[in-house]
């Protein structure tokens, strides 16, 4: 074998192993300055609690495998009755998720809205109505469904989590649940850009090439009472924009000097929405720096802050390195040989089978006791599907609790995750790969706050007045 795994790890240190998330590409597509506000600046926008939306997502992710597909009626005119049937059939799923979410929220001291139960039920019903009214009318019952799939395309530095995929005999349909409010999906906003980004990922999943549209049938944002479907075929200029913004985001993360373009209309700055003052602050900062108006001590301090920001981003790239190593090995030697080689180095673990689950704790077992796993390590548990690239297969994340001889005990994020994994993951041959938690935003935020503090202390107010 000419490429050694360790050499690959060392070699990749010198390249950039960043991945851009679909949601980040969508932000950059709205306004490139908005992307920079998150990375590298570290501005966290909005303290909104997504408790309700997350609960609805969890319910949908389980119901899509059972009540929704089971009650799928092609070309139906009785969407109301079907909706009610699905809601009735999903009652136990809803109850369990409501209970678990409330338990989690009280454990985390998060405020549970008084109308929590009602809101979750209403939004779930709204989304089911959207499916029954729009999707069932147009598309036949899917052969298979997947929910909450993470797809990584290392060649294009792109990653995203897809709410649901419906598989038909002649292709696939992509669904995105709009659960955070009951407004209609905006056909020109962030949601649509995210949808198109995710289509590129799904194309990669099914054909190995993001530009191969042969398996694509439709994509839809399902909102309360309806579904938005972009006109097909997706316009070349829109796909081009996504690719451009993906490259912009990637190069920004890599620390390259990339100039951000402000669009004719920015939904944040042009509407005075949350985050606009931070965005203006950094744009003013850049203008003053260009004009040489910044005091020396301010430039020195913010220089130190920027240096550290890019180191934080480098660390973010580090968290994706395992995926790049796996992908490079697979490309060079094929999947089977690469997996065997990566197993020898403890990067990939195979042979484990699901035994039982209790709450969020799941027991796996394999035939031998040779293992590289240790407690506290984070794993991506991949269910290996036939003819699908490894990093696009259905997967979930979990933390190692204990390793005892042939047994492996993992802790999953929530009961809903375990439930979902039982439905779509545990029956497949399991491949486990090292994963990491991304704490980039948490690390960048204090640097942003000190940047602003430095400006408050070291730049005289008159300088800003001069700028105006």
């Amino acid at each position, binding site marked *: 074998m000419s490429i050694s795994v*360790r050499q690959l790890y*060392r070699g990749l240190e010198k390249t950039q192993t960043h991945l851009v998330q679909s949601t980040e590409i969508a932000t950059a597509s709205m306004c490139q300055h908005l992307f920079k506000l998150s990375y590298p600046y570290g501005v966290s926008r909005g303290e909104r609690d997504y408790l309700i939306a997350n609960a609805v997502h969890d319910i949908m992710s389980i119901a899509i495998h059972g009540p929704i597909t089971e009650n799928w009626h092609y070309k139906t005119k009785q969407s109301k009755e079907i909706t009610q049937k699905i809601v009735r059939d999903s009652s136990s799923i809803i109850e369990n998720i409501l209970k678990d979410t409330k338990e989690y929220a009280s454990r985390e001291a998060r405020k549970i809205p008084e109308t929590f139960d009602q809101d979750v039920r209403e939004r779930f019903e709204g989304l089911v109505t959207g499916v029954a009214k729009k999707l069932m009318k147009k598309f036949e019952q899917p052969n298979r469904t997947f929910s909450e799939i993470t797809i990584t395309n290392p060649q294009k530095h792109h990653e995203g989590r897809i709410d649901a995929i419906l598989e038909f005999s002649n292709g696939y349909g992509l669904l995105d649940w709009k659960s955070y409010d009951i407004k209609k999906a905006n056909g020109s906003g962030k949601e649509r850009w995210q949808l198109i980004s995710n289509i590129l990922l799904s194309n990669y999943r099914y054909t190995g090439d993001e530009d191969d549209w042969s398996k694509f049938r439709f994509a839809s944002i399902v909102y309360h009472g309806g579904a938005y479907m972009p006109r097909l075929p997706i316009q070349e200029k829109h796909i081009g924009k996504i690719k451009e913004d993906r490259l912009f985001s990637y190069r920004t993360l890599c620390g390259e000097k990339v100039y951000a373009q402000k669009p004719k209309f920015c939904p944040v700055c042009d509407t005075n929405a949350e985050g606009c003052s931070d965005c203006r602050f950094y744009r003013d900062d850049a203008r003053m720096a260009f004009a040489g108006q910044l005091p020396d*001590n301010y430039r020195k301090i913010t220089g130190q802050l920027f240096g*550290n920001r890019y180191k934080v981003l*480098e*660390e973010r790239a580090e968290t994706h390195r395992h995926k790049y190593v796996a992908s490079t090995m697979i490309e060079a030697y094929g999947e089977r040989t690469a997996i065997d080689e990566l197993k020898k180095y403890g990067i990939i673990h195979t042979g484990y089978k699901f035994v039982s689950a209790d709450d969020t704790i799941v027991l796996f077992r394999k035939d031998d006791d040779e293992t590289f796993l240790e407690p506290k390590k984070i794993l991506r548990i991949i269910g290996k599907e036939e003819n699908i690239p490894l990093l696009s297969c259905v997967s979930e994340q979990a933390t190692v609790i204990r390793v005892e001889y042939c047994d492996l005990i993992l802790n999953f994020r929530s009961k809903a995750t375990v439930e979902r994994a039982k439905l779509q993951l545990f029956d497949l041959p399991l491949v486990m790969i090292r994963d990491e938690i991304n704490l980039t935003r948490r690390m960048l935020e204090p640097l942003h706050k*000190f940047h602003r503090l430095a400006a408050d202390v070291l730049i005289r107010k008159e300088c800003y007045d001069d700028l105006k």
Partner: protein
Amino acid sequence: MSLCLDTEQLRILKWRINSKGIAACIGPPGCGKTTTGSALAVKLVAEGITDKLLLVAYTNAAVNEFAWEICNIMGPTAAREYCIRTGNRAGIDCELPIEFSINAERIRAKKIVLCTTLSLKRLSSYMRFDNMIIDEAGIERLEHLLAPFVLGVNQLNAFQTNNRNCNSINNLIDLASSCGIVATVIGDPKQSRPMGLEEYDRSAIEWVLKYGPKDTLKITHRLPDKLSGLVNDFARYDGLRSSPDIASRRLILDKSPNPIYREIIDPEEVVTWLNINGEEKALGQSSWANDIEAKVCAKICRELRYITKKSIAVVTRFSEQRRIITRYVQRSGLLNIKVSTTTGALGTQADIVLFSLVRNNPERIVGQAGTLQDLNVAISRAKEKLIIVGNFDTMLNGWSRLPSNSRYGYKSPSRRLAQLIDSKYGKLINPPSVICE
């Protein structure tokens, strides 16, 4: 309140109680960094100097240790009344007599808040602390240091500074001090490097050391004379010494060891280097293991467990070696033997410590196993006896990893350690062949 501090700790306490701004306190191994920090916290609150104090560290283990120390000083009842532990529930020590909460109102009602750096995000951004103590600053980075600082900013001070001449503020530490942040940053840059990428140039405490005032503790309450001398000369602490009550402490065994192990376990010799010629093996993405060393460590542990009830720990630089040693130790049916990496061993101690070096190659490249911080941590965990297991020649002539743009490497600090042990502080022995089988 029960507390017994040495002269060095009292000096630092007095200094930090009477001063503002940000300062560093360096604590070599066993000098009582946590004790000093906890005593400072209690004194600041008890004397009414501080109304609200934040105690923060990078790991949950360190925060829990801080909490226990405060309970020891204040007593559990007072600790319960004044302190609160917050952050991630999974990381707390359930036996702590201090309340755990993430409720903003509960936290606001207490004077001392204990939390990890990464959990600070859970605190309300409106919460303000007028004093803070930051532990483990050697493994933290600049952004970890600034995270608690954000909660200590006095906007009025910032506004006043803007109206005055602010040309004298030339670095982040000055900026933070001018905004009313009062913090004591505790750590030891010679014991730890910043977490994360190898290229991180400066740890949190090094930022403070570069721009702010500092003081160093110099009396160790863990290391007996020979070990404190070794650590002092190796890490160049400039005057680290043992506290008189433990200086002459030696290992006392319940039974005499098997003749094979007699020279290795010799209680009179505080430091023993067992010169083993095991083969190193590359494992994992960047780790190393040495099977013979792992077996030898397990055998010595088994013998030690048979002849003494003292606490035993095994330390190694590499996680793969830790995994292999753990497996051998478990297979030997040994209980209560802690096997950890040098990073995991930070802040811990044991009566007897075995240190597995792992690296052994003809080029004598010791890489990360030869860094000052890792070697320093490994040799400074033992209270009575340190047994180093590994190839002496590799360490004596060791090179750090060759830089990519140069034909020449750097001489590894492992050379100094090998020389010091061989010439002054320990005994180099060759193992009986039966041990290496």
